[in-house]
């Protein structure tokens, strides 16, 4: 069986913000770097990030500082976020922004020539450094430009299908992947590996996530023995498009509310005044998403099943300058002029707080030589992520993962991957290909999986329904063996989806198990049968791989030092 072999010091999976930032950091440490990425270079889901990077540079609200950012992150994460990560994030975010600027990024400016900042849900001050509503694009282009002028080897449109480990020492040895354009398999031998493959939004039917967000890296890490954490924590963004059907789930950036947009139900009531009298439209995402959900459940919804989001009062010039992407998105996809008409919006699956468990300082997992950063990792955001914190996350922890993976690589010998391991992996992937045509392909099972998630693990959860969902997922997993698709290994979407389906179904089971386990309501995890938050559950739920089956365990939070706990104050239970 034919395959190519490559080797490097640091192998990076993913070419979004976290992956590219990690690659730059590893190159800075004089390591050889290979990046493999499922999508074309520059297309990763980071381009979809709209609102901005949260950093307390205090250009607009001069009272802002890292302590307030730290407190906002922990409090809105409903107190189960990792405090060490939150401290690192809050302290390093301003530097991460300025560093990006020195790499060539051009942020919007204040009158006196500093980086402009806007208000966002859950942030005490105006904190989000931004470029209109296209901040993610600016980040990806800046990092892409940086990486193209460095000596990184990039295999884009290449899907890693498995990680490899040394049987004796248990350390990571690289990955096996499929290059989509050539249809050829390859082994990537590496001293250390960084997983920066993003989230898993496409497990759901209605999501703002792009094609590639299928949780592959998280599943690969789990299968090779890495612990996962907070798998029950899925962020529903309050505002996604609801109409037309083809655009359902597309993100309507929080910047609309940040810039003054107001939410109304079909009766014309500004309902956020009732659910959150103080923070109103700019409360954290879990709160606003639930409020919209309740209004829709009560029947106070619009023609297409959403609520109204209104920014008209700001005037056309302001809207076109500050929200150009939203203006064209609604014009082109819904034929709605948001300077003259209201938008119709409803919650959409947006972000995954859970993922691979890592060490806060080094981003290393429990597997020696395996690192993770960005949405694929977990811990920082706790039970609910603040808008703008993910872009800070990918830069800060991307850099850390790259630096520490490089340090690890410098101490390590170049490992080997046994050819038998590579060949059996190639065989496994090729099993999905049937010789004849007219195979059903993975799409009907994918639909069933997405329906099960949407129906049983939505904004409001309940034991009986979740158990039904779990059974559905288990039955889908038992049918995976039968899934076959047609065609060859070259640029075959059916084959990609077969591989993704297997990963997603595994993660779906972890998500249901963790969600059933957490018998309280906290952050994004809201249960109708346990509507209150409980101090008993101030912990993280872990999933680990015990010879093929999923084992749950509880991990208590490490004690926060006094000088930090004083900043955030008491947590309240009622």
């Amino acid at each position, binding site marked *: 069986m034919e395959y190519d072999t490559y080797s490097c010091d640091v192998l990076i999976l993913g070419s979004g913000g976290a992956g590219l930032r990690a690659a730059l950091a590893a190159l800075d440490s004089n390591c050889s770097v290979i990046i493999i990425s499922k999508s074309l270079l520059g297309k990763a889901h980071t381009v979809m990030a709209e609102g901005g990077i949260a950093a307390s540079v205090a250009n607009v609200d001069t009272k802002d500082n890292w302590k307030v950012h730290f407190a906002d992150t922990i409090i809105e994460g409903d107190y189960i976020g990792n405090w060490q990560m939150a401290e690192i994030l809050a302290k390093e975010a301003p530097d991460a922004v300025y560093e990006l600027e020195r790499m060539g990024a051009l942020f919007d400016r204040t009158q006196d020539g500093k980086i402009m900042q806007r208000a966002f849900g859950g942030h005490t001050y105006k904190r989000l450094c931004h470029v209109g509503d296209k901040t993610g*694009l600016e980040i990806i282009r800046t990092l892409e430009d940086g990486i*193209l002028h460095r000596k990184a080897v990039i295999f884009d449109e290449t899907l890693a299908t498995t990680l490899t480990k040394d049987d004796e020492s248990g350390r990571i040895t690289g990955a096996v992947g499929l290059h989509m*354009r050539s249809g050829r398999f390859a082994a990537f031998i590496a001293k250390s590996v960084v997983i920066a493959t993003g989230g898993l939004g496409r497990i759901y039917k209605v999501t703002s996530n*792009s094609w590639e967000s299928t949780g592959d890296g998280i599943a690969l890490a789990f299968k090779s023995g890495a612990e996962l954490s907070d798998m029950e924590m899925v962020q529903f963004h309050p505002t996604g498009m609801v109409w037309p059907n083809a655009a359902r789930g597309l993100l309507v950036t929080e910047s609309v509310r940040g810039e003054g947009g107001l939410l109304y139900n079909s009766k014309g009531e500004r309902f956020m005044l009732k659910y959150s009298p103080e923070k109103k439209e700019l409360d954290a995402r879990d709160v606003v998403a639930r409020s919209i959900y309740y209004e829709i459940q009560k029947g106070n919804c619009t023609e297409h099943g959403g609520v109204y989001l209104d920014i008209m009062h700001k005037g056309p010039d302001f809207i076109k300058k500050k929200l150009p992407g939203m203006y064209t*998105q609604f014009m082109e996809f819904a034929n709605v002029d948001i300077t003259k008409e209201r938008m119709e919006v409803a919650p959409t699956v947006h972000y995954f707080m859970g993922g691979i468990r890592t060490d806060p300082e080094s981003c290393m997992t429990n597997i020696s030589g395996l690192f993770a950063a960005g949405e694929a990792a977990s811990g920082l955001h706790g039970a609910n992520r603040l808008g703008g914190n993910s872009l800070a996350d990918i830069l800060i922890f991307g850099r850390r993962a790259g630096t520490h993976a490089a340090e690890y690589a410098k101490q390590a010998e170049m490992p080997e991957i046994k050819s038998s391991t590579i060949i059996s992996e190639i065989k496994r992937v090729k099993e999905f290909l049937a010789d004849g045509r007219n195979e059903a392909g993975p799409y009907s099972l994918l639909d069933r999986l997405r329906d099960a998630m949407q129906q049983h693990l939505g904004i409001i959860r309940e034991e009986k329904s979740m158990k039904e969902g779990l059974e559905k997922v288990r039955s889908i997993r038992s049918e995976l063996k039968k899934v076959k698709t047609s*065609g060859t290994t070259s640029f075959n*979407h059916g084959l990609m989806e077969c591989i993704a389906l297997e990963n997603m179904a595994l993660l779906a089971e972890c998500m249901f198990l963790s969600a059933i386990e957490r018998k309280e309501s906290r952050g994004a995890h809201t249960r109708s049968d346990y509507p209150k938050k409980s101090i008993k559950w101030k912990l993280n739920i872990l999933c680990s791989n015990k010879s093929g089956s999923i084992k749950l365990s509880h991990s208590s939070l490490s004690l926060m030092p006094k000088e930090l706990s004083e900043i955030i104050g008491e947590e309240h239970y009622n």
Partner: protein
Amino acid sequence: MKSITTEKNGTATFKIFRKDPSRDSEGRYDEFEVPVEEGMSVLDGVNYIVEHIDPTLSVRWNCKAARCGSCAAEINGYPKLMCKTHISDLPSQIKLDPMGAFPLVKDLVADVSSNFDIDRRIPGFSPRKTSEKPWVMYDIDVARSQEFRKCIECFLCQDVCHVVRDHSSKYIGPRHVVKAAALDMHPMDTADRSVLLTKEKGLGLCNVTKCCQEVCPEHIAITDNAIIPEKERAADKLYDPVLSLLDKFLNRTGKQGEK
């Protein structure tokens, strides 16, 4: 303003170019009937085919929201993004081809990787040395470069450019002039790329027909704001005798804001 059809049960015929270069010596067109729903895009139609009729049809797409630039193709002969072209705006026969200016990977997927090699050879961001921290820049100064930085790298402008399509031409194409202009017009950048573009990258071959500008889904004024200013800057530097003497004498590169 365009209309979105409210007709629910119509169908459209997709005529799609098929070729796997590793197996087929010639390409062919396959026809598919696709049920059309309100608001459906060409990409939705193609995905319907992949999911329900032929999973071997190769297509590249990511965001479905016109933000990533992956799904560029030639729709009834016009270079467009499939995700933001509505079926209802087209005749009921829709012919799809991959971008013809690039080598073919398979079916609708073009190999655009040459663009990254071109980018590698354009000098990157070269900020001026300054002790000023953080940098002070004003909206009015960053706006010009920001226009070019909106580029989503769909490469439709490369596809439509008749100079690029003439494969013997050494012109690097509109996308890369936009890239160079974004760096040249960055308030902190000190390098000049206009002379390189003219002397080595064939910028002079562009005869400003503005086709690139017309197809840009981000509405970047590619010709007016990037190509023409780069041509003028190069002309100043290469052919203005007084300026070039002054530059030599003062040892300056002629960029604003540089001291």
